[in-house]
């Protein structure tokens, strides 16, 4: 019905109709899918959630004399330096060697983006071409060369809700789970969540431009553990899940409004990443997906008291509308729910992205290649 380049032309002329996912849901309820697909050109989405598989490549530039950094810490957080001389990768979940779970790679990333000074310590074994063996200095993001966030797994399409049937409090990456299923936590922004809105990833591929931490970012690959799946329920409804994205973006253009460190009690450190994806309304089929509301999007509830690959399912199907209501039913009992990802921020991101597309500074992209989506999930076979 419409192509990406036609939509981009409309954006450039200032004539494109851009709505957030929440707005398009309302419009489709009033005017129907067909009419809404005709009227709307772009739908924006957003999510703001802890995403552990995140980090950044940094290039410090060379001091004098030259050093080939072989061990690097940033504010006492070890960074990976097994690459070229003054390059490193700081992973979000790496912990400080002096402060433990209080401070980690995610905090280094947040502090860098906030413009703060960071203590860089580097060691080396010294070579003829890189004789220096030690370095200790303050660095700032703006004084460095290329610094880009490279997140191997972000934007989980869907995520299971967590509860705990055991007798003790569990501190998990899904937050604090109280005994005897006294609470349940969930992690996506539901109807605003990017990959739930184009479940078969028709419009997303390598090179898709996205909103990443306030800056422009790009999809570089399918994310690690990207195993798209579709669950068919006995009542004829279905749900999608399992897709993930690897994303890249210029850290110097990011903002702490959309990138924040997360300390997860007795679990470790993670990074809140704000992501927004704009979708071109290519046809009615896609719009029907984009306009799927929380009561038509589902996940399952797992029992986190069993730390195995196959956790017991406490409930096979629960809608995001029910999760959002603050209470779900679990084994005949009302259980209070809590989100771990910020709906307020997700809305903000969808709205900011909408404004950027409307103003013509953010054009949509045609992927340069499809993502590989037929991968088989393999367990680790220990031998």
């Amino acid at each position: 019905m419409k192509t990406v380049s036609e939509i981009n032309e409309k954006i450039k002329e200032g004539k494109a109709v851009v709505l957030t996912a929440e707005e398009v849901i309302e419009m489709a309820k009033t005017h129907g899918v067909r009419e809404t697909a005709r009227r709307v050109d772009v739908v924006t989405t957003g999510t703001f959630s802890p995403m552990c598989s995140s980090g950044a490549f940094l290039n410090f530039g060379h001091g004098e004399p030259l050093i080939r950094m072989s061990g690097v810490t940033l504010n006492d957080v070890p960074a990976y330096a097994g690459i070229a001389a003054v390059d490193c990768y700081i992973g979000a979940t790496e912990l400080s060697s002096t402060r433990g779970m209080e401070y980690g790679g995610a905090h280094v990333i947040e502090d860098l983006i906030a413009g703060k000074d960071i203590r860089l310590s580097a060691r080396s074994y010294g070579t003829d071409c890189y004789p220096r063996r030690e370095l200790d200095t303050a660095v700032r993001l703006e004084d460095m060369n290329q610094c880009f966030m490279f997140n191997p797994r972000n934007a989980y399409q869907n995520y299971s809700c967590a509860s705990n049937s055991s007798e003790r409090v569990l501190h998990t990456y899904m937050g604090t789970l109280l005994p005897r299923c006294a609470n349940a936590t969930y992690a996506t922004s539901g109807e605003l969540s990017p990959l739930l809105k184009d479940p078969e990833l028709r419009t997303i591929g390598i090179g898709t431009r996205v909103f990443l931490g306030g800056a422009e970012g790009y999809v570089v690959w399918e994310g690690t553990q990207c195993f798209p799946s579709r669950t068919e329920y006995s009542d004829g409804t279905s749900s999608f899940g399992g897709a993930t994205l690897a994303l890249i973006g210029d850290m110097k253009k990011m903002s702490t409004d959309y990138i924040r460190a997360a300390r997860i009690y007795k679990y470790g450190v993670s990074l809140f990443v704000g992501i927004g994806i704009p979708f071109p309304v290519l046809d009615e089929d896609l719009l029907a997906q984009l306009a799927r509301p929380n009561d038509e999007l589902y996940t399952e509830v797992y029992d986190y008291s069993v730390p195995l690959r196959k956790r017991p399912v406490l409930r096979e199907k629960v809608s995001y509308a029910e999760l959002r209501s603050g209470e779900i039913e679990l084994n005949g009992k009302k259980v209070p729910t809590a989100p771990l990802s910020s709906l307020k921020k997700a809305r903000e991101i969808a709205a900011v992205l909408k404004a950027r597309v409307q103003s013509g500074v953010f054009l949509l992209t045609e992927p340069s290649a499809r993502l590989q989506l037929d991968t088989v999930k393999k367990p680790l076979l220990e031998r």
Partner: protein
Amino acid sequence: MQKSVKVRLQFNTTDTEKPFVHLFATKFGLVFSILQADIMPGRGGRMIMDLTGEAEDIERALAYAAERNVRVKILSKAIVWNDASCVHCGACTAVCLHKALTLDPVTAELSFNNESCVVCEMCVKACPTGAVRVDIYNGNES
């Protein structure tokens, strides 16, 4: 000097409980509000309350309670929520069973209601950004 304190009272049996919560008001002229009461019939329980009145009267009332085998603990702490560093994720609401921290169903913003807080400190651990912390009162306690 008028002051307000949050106290936790633990009873061994229920028969001690009724009269003197009442006496707090009549005998000592205190204004109180019960924030939480977990009383198990015949086995005692605990109660968290806010007491407001003259500092002296509060002291006398608590001493009176202590003499009657009630364990008294002054909760000289309060939860402080920092809106500026809050990302409104909601992780704290998972553990706040007293609904002092709640997400607005419309705006999706977090709000903190000090009145409902029993200072269990669960939220302090659960908050990933350090936006909730415990503040210790100084000088205002007995």
